[in-house]
């Protein structure tokens, strides 16, 4: 317990609490349970994507294509629904997850089999996936009235006071807790990122594990693609543009080390919630939305400086500027 109190997660939790108190002092309604539930729902897509990104970063990779993957999957789902409203929702959900996973697998294969650096691969596929949306849709939007009520209604369907979207985020988080703590694959993510050379000796296939991380990240991006499009009832080329950086930011704020092998699911969850609260609070507390960007930028810098500081004491070599990022 005392170890937890000193952890990054506890400090982040504290920061969130302070943030909420500050907001509540100006606008008490913000902390009403119903509103917090709404903020959570609004943050759900970020949480789902950030969890996927977490396993990718744990294995020393990065996936910049998540937002493009989301948008392409979302567009395909929307176009399918518009063209064939009769296709059952379960099939669409399956399609979304499968399509996302395939796009993730494409990233993963290039990292695994061709050893192309992940940042290059996903920078490339990010523009390709985004461009494909334009190609398949011809740039046209799919609007609310073209979608079936079942399609748009699913993510907002209310169960026990929370919409399905939020329940999915909770479910995914729970699955991640189990996967990370209790499955060999979950532990392999840490091993591969922490010491790839050593992982081979323990029978872990580094490339395959990274591939799996990309597939998971892709599948979740695909799932979120459907949820996003259905929730906002619109699909177009630019949806979630630039969202990949917000996703990475959530992970970094949550204490996931960009060098791989370190970080927790709880951290990512809190990192995403922190960003979500800031984003939702700004319009409410009457700070110009133009401040949002600068605030999240500052949060990222503070978080990474803080994480570096807390792990610094372990290092014995003092010439950190050379050692730190050799």
């Amino acid at each position, binding site marked *: 317990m005392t170890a937890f109190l000193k952890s990054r997660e506890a400090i982040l939790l504290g920061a969130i609490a302070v943030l909420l108190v500050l907001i509540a002092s100006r606008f008490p309604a913000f902390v009403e349970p119903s509103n917090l539930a709404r903020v959570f729902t609004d943050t759900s897509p970020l949480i789902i994507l950030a969890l996927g990104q977490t396993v990718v970063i744990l294995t020393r990779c990065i996936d910049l294509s998540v937002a493009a993957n989301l948008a392409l999957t979302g567009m395909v789902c929307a176009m399918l629904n518009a063209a064939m409203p009769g296709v059952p929702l379960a099939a669409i959900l399956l399609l979304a997850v499968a399509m996302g996973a395939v796009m993730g697998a494409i990233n993963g294969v290039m990292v695994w089999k061709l050893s192309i650096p992940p940042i290059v691969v996903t920078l490339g596929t990010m523009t390709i996936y985004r461009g494909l949306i334009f190609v398949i849709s011809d740039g046209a939007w799919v609007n609310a009235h073209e979608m079936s009520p079942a399609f748009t209604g699913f993510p907002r369907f209310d169960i026990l006071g929370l919409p399905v979207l939020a329940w999915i985020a909770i479910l995914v988080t729970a699955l991640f807790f189990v996967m990370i703590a209790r499955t*060999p694959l979950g532990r392999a993510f840490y*091993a591969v990122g*922490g*010491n790839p050379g*050593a992982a*081979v*000796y*323990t029978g872990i296939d580094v490339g395959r594990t990274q591939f799996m991380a990309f597939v998971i990240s892709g599948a979740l991006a695909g799932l979120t693609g459907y949820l996003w499009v259905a929730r906002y009832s619109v699909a177009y080329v630019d949806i979630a543009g630039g969202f990949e950086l917000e996703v990475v930011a959530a992970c970094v704020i949550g204490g996931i080390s960009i060098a791989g092998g370190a970080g927790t699911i709880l951290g990512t969850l809190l990192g995403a919630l922190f960003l979500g609260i800031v984003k939702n609070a700004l319009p409410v507390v009457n700070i110009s939305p133009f401040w949002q960007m600068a605030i999240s930028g500052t949060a990222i810098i503070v978080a990474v400086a803080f994480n570096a500081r807390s792990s610094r004491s372990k290092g014995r070599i003092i010439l950190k500027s050379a050692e730190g990022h050799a």
Partner: protein
Amino acid sequence: MQVSLDPSNPRPVPADVAPVLHLDGITKTFPGVKALSEVSLSLYPGQVTALVGENGAGKSTIVKTLTGILQPNAGTITLDGQAVVFPTAQHATDAGITAIHQETVLFDELSVAENIFIGHQPRTRFGLIDWAAMRARAREILDRIDADLDPDMPLHELGIASKHLVAIARALSVDARVVIMDEPTAALSHKEIEELYELVERLKSEGRAILFISHKFDEIFRIADRYTVFRDGQHVGEGLIAEIDEGELVRLMVGRSVDQIFPPRDHRVGDEVLAVSGYSHPTEFQDISFTLRKGEILGFYGLVGAGRSEVMQALFGVTKPSGGEIRIDGTAHQVRSPSDAIDAGIVYVPEERGRQGAVIGLPIFQNVTLPSLAQTSRRGFLKLSEEFALTREYTERLDLRAASLDQDVGNLSGGNQQKVVIAKWLATKPRVIILDEPTKGIDIGSKAAVHAFMAELAAQGLAVIMVSSEIPEVLGMSDRVIVMREGLIAAELTGDELTPETLVRHAAGIGA
């Protein structure tokens, strides 16, 4: 005693045991290197087989083929009379083959228990990892090797020796018939080495077959029942330890006899060059004071973790000291960075050659001129002809073996990389050269060359500090020896005091 060099005529195997594991005709090539060429190896239940050979002979490579990390190009592995293949490390583990590898195969962010079981964690009925069982079994194994470690402790909180114990525990976490140990004692202290020997005995008595790789002859002769010798990727001999002596084994390894390992030295020394007083560091070492003279070789001995490297890195400006003073020729110098040290005339050949010494990826000549660019350039602009000239001057003195001077240092053998690093420093015309474990990971043949060269440097008037953990090397090369223990100078020894016994006593803190 006679040993046949003809592998087709091996020594008789005790008739009562058949080998549990047999490798035959194993060939393994890397791009440009034939690491193994049709080698064979047999391991017997309840016996320790020592695998010996120079650096690069292919010892670790055969371990990796045996544990599924590398796939041989040709050859067969027979386990209990059955031909087997190990596509991954997992398959080898499942077949009951386990290894302590030469490289540390550990994960800093994971706990001790996880490090022991990663890759084969105990599972619950639902296929999930059973943490309780994992902790309990980790506890059990750690007790077996007398390691007092908390299974839940994150690995990064452990010292280097404890980490090694975890690696050993990891190998024991599999109920293996074959246990492989690739230089297991290299990072252990005296006490832990003894415990390891006991463990080996226990494993033997349990009927397990053990493959033991070591460069240390004393331990080979102490614990091994059999030996197998590799040379340049080829099997050159095997037999019973009882039927061979040390000289014979060395001759087998190197293909010639190495009669004199240490060069003769003229022990006359000149004026004092370096004086260090009261050097301290908040956590690593304290109150280090000594002097060094022209033409002298000063040995630094201590157990692993005694803080010798840290002291040297502080003298070289890599680590920041918290107090103390350095004087060169009587003048005080502030050394805050390696470039300050180089300016003051102190250079450092680091222990970790690949990471700290050579800049792998750059050609040889660029490595050599890196600290001397000011000398080879005009107003900041490179002059390649001068760089090649400078490089040639020093690499020829060191007899560097390379295809060309613009070859990547990464393609050189370890000994030749070490020569590049030394050439780099000689080109700066230093006053004091510090060599940290200069022959670590270098085979006997190249070792002799490094020793001869060190003697020559001293003879030319350079002041030399040599950090070494090998007692023969320390005794054979040094004029004077400083023994360190737990960050402090434990003793300064000269002349008759220089015996293996005094070194060990001071290093281990056993009352003299």
